[in-house]
């Protein structure tokens, strides 16, 4: 075992050697420097291994004396982990900066070496004055590295940094010297034992020590000097400052907190949260990648600071939470800075160039998702535990602040990711990718996945998570270069295999999950079949599509809240990438993501509050919650309603579904929305145990009714066929919400019937219209017409789809309507019921428009040669039609088991079944009978019409001579643009986009507040020093004294 003291000997020795040996050339010096950093890394890593294998630690007493007579260094678990982290990023960062360092020569390498060594000692030392010395060493080295690439900006930033950190260091020194005066020791453990807080003057001394370390962590708003450094330094150096220096300084803070204890926890938590929220808020106004990353770094350090302030509530999970978030920040932030250094764009939009290199885009996406705290990354588990513990300690205000800061972070990170994936940036800047620059980025990205996998087991309930499907997604990513036919077949086979392994047992034990698993998996397999219609490789489609299905499957499998939330977030990530694939989907992808994150945080808060005071993490505890019942159910409802796009939270849906690719729309509409329904069912099962939750159900009922009305009205005035269907989905989900909120046996039977029906007919309609769009090349219905002759199969499919959707006999939609009226009358919600009924009649308007404008009337000139929709679409469409037919003819096959299932929650008020005859308290209905009679009537009428019209004269399409016109060129008389102008005059005011305007104004508010506060960063270095001094004074007088 090599003693940790040799980190110093190697660092200093090589620094001198570099000067002596410069004659051997810059390559030699560079390799020597890297070897030096590697050797430091080896020493720290060796102690890391030693700790985890034998628990051994090392304590070094310089000069052979024990403290307080000497400086002592410690190499324990924490030190070994953090020093290894610093040395790893030091080594990779050195490789990354190879060319720059070589250009500057051995002076720069020397500074680099001392920089890394200094951080090692900051981590290891247990002596306060020694800490000061090496903080200064690192600070001077940093100031040197900032001008590694000299330009106007970096020189200014470096000076501001110097002046601010020198004042901070002066305060620190003063604190140390007075601490020594009162405690007669400089040893950190000795200072901790001296109980300085109890001594008059001692508390001021220790305050100075603590506040200067806090200032070194760059608290908002006294951090302008740090932002400029992140902005102006070459990104390779910013990566080190963000990943290595921040890691070392964070541990220094942790050590110093050992002296203070928990006395100032509240203040630290407040400063940390202010920094987290403030920095991320201001981040939303940034457009320079480096500066944005600076804001994000500072925000993350604020969160980490707050975590130490939360210490009294985090118990033994403190280390886990702090470490997972620190590790994620370390890996992701270094990776992002390094990427920024490769692309060299002054603007976030320049990251669009990543599109040329899909692998790098993948790395970028990995870092963004990791920073936000998505699974499977370590920060996901850290944030989960953090929220659970804060809620458990009833620190709800802090919990919401953490979530708010994370949300702001999501705004700018996902806007940035959206730019890189989709923005129209005609001149994509060229960039060169050197192996020495991309390998460190790749290693850190892989590190995030590996770390996420291993941290999952340490979170409570994390061992339940099934990672195998995620490995399959990773496999799909690796074979992304193969043609569609192979990837599609593998994907369908995987879903089929998974279905066969999961559906039969679910059918036996858990009908509820069986239904939703059926929708997710069978729907998934069927919609994937349409993928065969595409040509080429369709890069990136299969990993993200399967990612969404994996998430959906995890929601089904989940028995505990962590697992459920894990699946929920995986599903969100997959669907985001699916949605943003559409041609014009960049803004819709962003709004989908922001609503999803907001909803997910509502869920997280709700789960946290539900878990508070309960021993179990099982989803069943939702039924046993005893305090904050309205808050818990309200938050969970909001979370799920963002996914079902209920009124107020719906504005993301029309664009997201309307602009998605042809086979993606049915996936995200017919299938994905049901995840929200599944969540609502879970929630309402729990609400059923709480009589006081009836109020929430009542509100949700109204919300459902109004959503149905607004969705249908919205659909009526659409000219875009896919947006029409998207609005229709909003309305249909409104029906389902309404029916669930009734909270009776029949209400739920209605809701499940609607869910299954909506899955089938919306998949049929979206698949068909999507396939038509692929053929005719437009979404606008007024640009279509008369396609019945060219696409009879598509016409029949849409006809069946709209009959089922409109709820007229004989198809299964009627079953839903019949049940619905029974449920409403039974419950007595007449007014709401009337609104839903009214919106049902509006549905006829847009359904007619859909089939009339697209398929009837006159064929457009440019569609004369258009072909029938692709057979790969016809197959899943007609399988679903068969499904609808079976459900329509034999509804009892589905409704009877559903009824039995619902009996376990609502034993009374179900249907009585006698073969195919269902009897409720209000009447009876026979699905098969209706089907037979309607078919007979239809056949009779059809033959009558055929007989009567056999003498009718056939006319050509443009034979409008009977109108006394003699056209010289073909003219269509087909009217479909603004077909409901009259209704629009009467009811158009109801579809004024007030809700979209509300969210727009929220967006403006956030950005203008951010724009206002960013003015405090005037750019004047002197002002930044004043911020620092003021910060100290304000914290002292308002918080401590």
């Amino acid at each position: 075992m090599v003693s940790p003291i040799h980190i110093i000997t190697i660092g200093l020795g090589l620094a001198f050697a570099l000067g002596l040996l410069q004659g051997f050339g810059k390559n030699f010096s560079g390799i020597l420097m890297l070897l030096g950093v590697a050797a430091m890394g080896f020493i720290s890593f060796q102690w890391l291994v030693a700790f985890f294998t034998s628990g051994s630690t090392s304590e070094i007493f310089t000069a052979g004396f024990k403290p307080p007579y000497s400086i002592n260094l410690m190499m324990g678990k924490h030190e070994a982990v953090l020093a290894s982290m610093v040395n790893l990023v030091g080594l990779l960062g050195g490789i990354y900066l190879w060319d720059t360092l070589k250009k500057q020569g051995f002076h720069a390498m020397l500074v680099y070496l001392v920089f890394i060594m200094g951080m090692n000692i900051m981590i290891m030392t247990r002596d306060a004055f020694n800490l000061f010395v090496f903080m200064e060493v690192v600070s001077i080295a940093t100031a040197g590295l900032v001008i590694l690439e000299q330009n106007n900006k970096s020189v200014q930033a470096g000076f501001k940094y110097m002046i601010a950190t020198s004042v901070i260091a002066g305060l620190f020194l003063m604190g140390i010297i007075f601490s020594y005066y009162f405690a007669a020791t400089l040893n950190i453990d000795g200072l901790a034992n001296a109980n300085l807080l109890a001594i008059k003057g001692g508390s001021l001394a220790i305050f100075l020590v603590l506040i200067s370390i806090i200032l070194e962590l760059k608290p908002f708003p006294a951090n302008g000097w740090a932002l400029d450094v992140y902005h102006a330094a070459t990104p390779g150096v910013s990566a080190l400052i963000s990943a290595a220096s921040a890691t070392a300084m964070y541990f220094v803070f942790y050590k110093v907190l050992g002296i203070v204890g928990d006395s100032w926890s509240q203040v630290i938590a407040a400063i940390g949260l202010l920094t987290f929220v403030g920095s991320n808020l201001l981040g939303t106004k940034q457009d320079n990648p480096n500066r944005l990353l600076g804001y994000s770094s500072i925000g993350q350090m604020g969160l980490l600071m707050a975590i130490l302030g939360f210490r009294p509530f985090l118990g033994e999970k403190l280390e886990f939470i702090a470490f997972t978030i620190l590790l994620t920040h370390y890996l992701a932030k270094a990776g992002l800075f390094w990427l920024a250094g490769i692309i060299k764009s002054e603007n976030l939009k320049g990251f669009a160039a990543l599109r040329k290199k899909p692998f790098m885009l993948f790395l970028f996406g990995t870092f963004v998702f990791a920073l936000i705290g998505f699974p499977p990354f370590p920060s996901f588990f850290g944030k989960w535990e953090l929220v659970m513990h804060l809620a458990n300690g009833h620190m709800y205000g802090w919990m919401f602040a953490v979530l708010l800061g994370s949300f702001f972070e999501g705004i700018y990170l996902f806007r940035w990711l959206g730019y890189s994936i989709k923005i129209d940036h005609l001149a994509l800047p060229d960039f060169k990718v050197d192996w020495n620059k991309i390998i460190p980025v790749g290693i850190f990205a892989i590190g995030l996945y590996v770390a996420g996998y291993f941290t999952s087991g340490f979170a409570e309930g994390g061992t339940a998570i099934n990672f195998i499907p995620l490995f399959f997604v990773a496999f799909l990513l690796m074979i992304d270069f193969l043609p569609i036919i192979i990837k599609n077949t593998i994907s369908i086979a995987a879903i089929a295999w998974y279905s066969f392994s999961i559906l039969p047992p679910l059918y036996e034990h858990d009908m509820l999950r069986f239904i939703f698993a059926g929708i997710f998996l069978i729907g998934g397999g069927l919609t994937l079949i349409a993928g065969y219609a595409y040509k080429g490789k369709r890069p990136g489609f299969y990993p993200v599509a399967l990612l969404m299905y994996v998430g959906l499957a995890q929601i089904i499998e989940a028995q505990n809240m962590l697992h459920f939330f894990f699946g929920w977030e995986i599903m969100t990530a997959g669907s985001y990438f699916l949605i943003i694939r559409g041609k014009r989907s960049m803004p819709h992808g962003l709004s989908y993501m922001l609503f999803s994150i907001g909803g997910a945080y509502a869920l997280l808060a709700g789960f946290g509050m539900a878990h508070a005071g309960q021993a179990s993490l099982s989803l069943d505890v939702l039924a046993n919650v005893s305090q904050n019942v309205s808050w818990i159910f309200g938050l969970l409802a909001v979370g799920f309603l963002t996914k079902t796009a209920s009124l107020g939270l719906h504005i993301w849906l029309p664009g997201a579904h309307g602009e998605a690719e042809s086979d993606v729309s049915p996936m995200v509409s017919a299938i994905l929305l049901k995840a929200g329904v599944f969540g609502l069912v879970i929630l309402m099962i729990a609400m059923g145990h709480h009589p006081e939750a009836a109020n929430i159900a009542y509100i949700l009922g109204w919300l459902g009714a109004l959503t149905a009305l607004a969705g249908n009205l919205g659909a009526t005035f659409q000219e875009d066929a896919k947006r029409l269907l998207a609005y229709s989905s909003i309305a249909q989900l409104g029906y389902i919400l309404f029916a669930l909120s009734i909270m009776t046996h029949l209400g739920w039977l209605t809701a499940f019937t609607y869910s299954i029906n909506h899955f089938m007919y919306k998949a049929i309609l979206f698949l068909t219209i999507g396939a038509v769009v692929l053929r005719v090349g437009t979404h606008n219905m007024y640009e279509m017409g008369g396609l019945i002759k060219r696409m009879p199969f598509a016409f029949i499919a849409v006809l069946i789809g709209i009959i089922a959707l409109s709820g007229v006999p004989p198809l299964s939609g009627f079953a839903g309507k019949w049940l619905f009226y029974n449920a409403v009358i039974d419950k007595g919600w007449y007014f709401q019921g009337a609104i839903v009924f009214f919106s049902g009649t509006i549905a006829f308007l847009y359904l007619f428009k859909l089939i009339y404008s697209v398929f009837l009337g006159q064929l457009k000139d440019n569609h004369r040669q258009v072909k029938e929709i692709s057979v790969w679409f016809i197959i899943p469409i007609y399988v679903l039609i068969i499904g609808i037919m079976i459900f329509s003819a034999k509804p009892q096959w589905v409704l009877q088991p559903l009824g039995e299932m619902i009996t376990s929650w609502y034993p009374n008020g179900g249907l009585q079944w006698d073969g195919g005859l269902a009897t409720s308290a209000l009447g009876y209905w026979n699905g098969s009978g209706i089907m037979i009679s309607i078919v007979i009537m239809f056949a009779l009428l059809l033959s009558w019409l055929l007989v009567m019209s056999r003498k009718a004269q056939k006319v050509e399409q443009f034979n409008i001579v009977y109108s006394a016109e003699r056209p010289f060129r073909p003219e269509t008389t087909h009217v479909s643009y603004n077909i409901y102008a009259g209704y629009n005059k009467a009811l158009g005011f109801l579809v004024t986009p007030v809700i979209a305007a509300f969210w727009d104004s929220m967006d403006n508010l956030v950005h203008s507040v951010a724009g206002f506060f960013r003015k405090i960063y005037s750019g004047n270095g002197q002002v930044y020093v004043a911020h620092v001094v003021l910060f100290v004074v304000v914290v002292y007088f308002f918080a401590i004294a």
Partner: protein
Amino acid sequence: MEYISIIVGLLLIIFGLWGVLTQKNILKIIIGFSLFDTGLHVVMVSISYVKGRTAPILDDTVSIADAAKKIVDPIPQALVLTAIVIGLGVTALMLAYAMKMYKQKGTLDISGYKELNG
């Protein structure tokens, strides 16, 4: 009387900080920092002083045996040496920066260097 040096030190710190915060000229700011730093050093030495004792040097007048009773606390005096060295390094680096900034724009007014902001 023994408090004079510590008061002087604290005054120097305050004057120095005042200079850093109010002077527009970068060189004056650096001088302000130097005053601030020097004040710190004076305070460090002052707090080790114990009334009626002598310098911590072992010679004919102070033997090892009664050193603990006769000399002032030697540790801050040792520390201050390190602090002075660090202060020197920091000041030198600041001056180097000042030079570079002057070369860039030909002015030493700190408010002229605000390209990075917001």
